[in-house]
């Protein structure tokens, strides 16, 4: 069964040419797909559509084999996907790191003990063990990025949607991020304009642009 299936998707911002015409693709379990394209080619918009935050002009979205049309459909399915926003500051809004990472698990109905356990585990996977009591807005850029990834990982999603996860990271931050992504064990769609970063983390790269996604390159790392 596919994790994400998109059929004949069309979207255009008001007064602008359409980003794609009849877009089709499938994300299968185990796939780590890099979406490569220039700025403004619609990578973030695609993620917003997949999460039901933006409504496309036409087309069908299937999440884990379920057709999602209404906001209620998306609300039920979207917690099964971990969407890490482009700017971690949009995502981290609680005072402490632990509270922020536990926000998702608590929303899913886990008990406090269980949410705490999942959060600590997530922080450990992303190399942030011992950061529980740190204040989120005092974290460095790289730490914020890892914390925002831990926050979506803690919800035990089936796949990740990663929007430019490497942006504004220094060398050490990049190294930590790559290690954490390798360790997290999930399939993903990762949007980026950085070909080299995609090649070093994903096992397939699709080019986004000119109205469709072309699977142009397959590389296995």
């Amino acid at each position, binding site marked *: 069964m596919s994790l994400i299936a998109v059929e004949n998707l069309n979207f255009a911002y008001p007064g602008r040419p359409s980003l794609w015409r009849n877009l089709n693709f499938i994300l299968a379990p185990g796939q780590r797909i890099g979406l490569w394209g220039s700025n403004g080619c619609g990578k973030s918009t695609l993620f*917003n559509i997949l*999460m039901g*935050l933006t409504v496309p002009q036409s087309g069908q979205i299937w999440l884990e084999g379920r057709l999602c049309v209404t906001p209620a459909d998306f*609300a039920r399915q*979207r*917690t099964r*996907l971990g*969407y890490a*926003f482009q*700017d971690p*500051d*949009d*995502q981290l*809004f*609680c*005072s*402490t790191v*632990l*509270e922020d990472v*536990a*926000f*998702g698990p*608590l*929303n*899913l109905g886990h008990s*406090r003990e269980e*949410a*705490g356990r999942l*959060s600590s585990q997530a922080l450990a996977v992303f190399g942030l063990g011992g950061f529980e009591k740190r204040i989120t*807005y005092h974290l460095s850029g790289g730490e914020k990025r890892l914390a925002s990834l831990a*926050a*979506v990982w803690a*919800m035990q999603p089936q796949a990740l949607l990663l929007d430019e996860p490497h942006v504004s990271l220094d060398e050490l931050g990049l190294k930590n991020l790559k290690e954490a992504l390798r360790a997290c064990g999930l399939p993903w769609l990762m949007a980026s304009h950085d070909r080299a970063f995609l090649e070093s983390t994903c096992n397939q790269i699709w080019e986004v642009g000119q109205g469709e996604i072309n699977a142009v390159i397959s590389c296995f790392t």
Partner: protein
Amino acid sequence: MLTGFDPRAKLLIAFLFSIITVLTNNKPGLGACLVTGLAGFALSGLTWRRLAPRLAAVNFFLILTWLTLPWQLTGGYPHFYPPGAWLALLITVKANAIFLLWMSLLAGSPASDLLHALAHFHLPDKLLALFFLFERYIYLLSDEYRRLRAAMDVRGFQPRLNQRTLRVFSQLAGAILVRGFDRSQRVYQAMLCRGFKGTFYLISHFHWSGRDSRLLLASLLWLSALLGWEIFA
């Protein structure tokens, strides 16, 4: 010194004190309320330097009551009107007493602790969400402002008393509002993606200890004395 206590005890005391102070109208009782506020300040470990600007902000608004209430217009000229002056005095003393005690009790608690304490009193989720996001957005807006101001400063902007400065500042205010709105949309969407349905669940809990009970008991005794004074005096 007051920082180590359970925020729930402090919130309860501050809330009850405010109600009793508002109800008090006899002179010695009012004096006692003001003394309570001052005593709270003395015990809180707050410095005068930290308190003074905030106290000044509160009293700036109280100046308005002194400019209007104690004056009566007769024959086209304002005349001093003692009952109005008494009313202005009442408002000033009460506002300062309440403000002093709230500052002394709660200034040492982070906003997240206060939110948790409020959640323990089972206030409506919407109110809590409002308080929580308000606290968060104050930081976001001030961040946004500092970033924009820094970008203006490095391009050589110097505020002066002229039309251009006014225009630039109005554009700055507009940019902060628009960016703040955009960001609030994204923060809300990020919350939706993590399964937010309107309820905040709490992960950390407070531990009520013997000293919290003692603080609450002592405060309740003193507060009932203040209330009794007003009723029977």
